[in-house]
């Protein structure tokens, strides 16, 4: 068995793992639009919570809120999309939502709050969008 004397790094394995998880968090924020609040990167309160992001889907047969009230799965998908609006999550939601649109194309857009404190303005900024065509 290897002693700790030979491997002093093992003494600090837990903080090292914490740093590695933070590293993964930063990569996912950059590459997959992961919201800073999640993924163990300690980015809470560094930006507005993803709960306040908005999901916009075109040509729905009924309002998104009603669909969520009827189907918990849609609500879960929406939170996934708000939390990490990457292609995979958007595609997953678009596939499900294609059953609730009036035409053959589903476009999902995720918007985040855009605040301009100097001019007291509030608007929205597009994070990502995905278009899905029914097969």
């Amino acid at each position, binding site marked *: 068995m290897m002693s700790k004397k030979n491997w002093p790094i093992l003494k600090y394995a837990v903080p090292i793992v914490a740093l590695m*998880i933070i590293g993964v968090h930063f990569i996912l924020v950059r590459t997959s639009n992961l919201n800073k609040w999640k993924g163990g990167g300690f980015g809470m309160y560094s*930006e507005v919570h993803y709960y306040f992001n908005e999901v*916009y889907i075109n040509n729905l047969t009924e309002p998104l809120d009603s669909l969520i009230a009827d189907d918990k799965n849609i609500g879960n998908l929406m939170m996934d999309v708000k939390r990490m609006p990457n292609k995979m999550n958007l595609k997953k939601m678009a596939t499900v939502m294609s059953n609730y649109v009036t035409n053959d194309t589903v476009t999902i857009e995720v918007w985040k709050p855009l605040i301009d404190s100097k001019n007291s303005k509030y608007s929205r900024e597009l994070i990502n969008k995905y278009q899905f065509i029914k097969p």
Partner: protein
Amino acid sequence: MNVLNWKSTKEVLADKNYLALKLLLIFITVYLISTGMDHKRVKLPLLCIGLFLIVFFVKNLRQPLLWYIFLTILISDLICDYFVRANHHFLLIYITILVIIFLHNGQYEDFITNIKLLAVIVLLFSGIQKLVSPQFVSGDFYYYMINTGSFFKPLLYFNPEMKQIVAHNHAQISELALLDPNTSKIVTFQNVLPNLAIISHIFAWFTIIIEMGTAILIFLKPKHLVTHALFISLILGIFLTRLENGFLTLLAISGIWLSEHTRIRAIYSVLAIVFITLIIINIGFY
């Protein structure tokens, strides 16, 4: 029988390991109950087995088995919903692993160093994340949170005018949410306080300096009174801004381990007890 024996209180405060472990045990129990609804299918067998082991095999809180049970349940949550878990869930797992290692090898100095490093990492990266966020450093984040009543909530109860402004801003956001975002419509906020944009900007930089400053002090002078005065002030500051009870409890418990003064430990203990109580009565966040 003298139930409230202050001498025994002093003895409890003197044994910081036992004190911190006891508070950690209470916190994990409350936390697991609060998050018990998540992933019921996974939790059902885990909790049943865990409780069985606790009832029949755990005799005291220095027994690693108890902490293995907690760790298993906490990790199950992470596996089922990695991106849903809060940052302090990760911190709780790290601390639990450190406790297990310590209970096995008894290397006290290593344990305290690791607790110190974790506290430094949490505060330092919390500061760095804010520093690299344009929304935070500009003050826009605080401006939004204060104008929508998400921060300093109790103030709204005492100031009807502020409450009205917050309601107005909420109504503006709700109306905007009904419109297609591609129309690029913009709404104007009313400010709950004059010069809120400037106040938010200053408050943002103050937060970053305090968080990173506390992290550096904990790293360099973990036992110093000034370090703990700042750490306690930071905990109280977060508490007054928003009731992040779960995160704050873990910071307070870490403070107990890092402190060498019984009076400072008493403050951390009281804070941890208040935060845990708030979680139990469902005020704020767990």
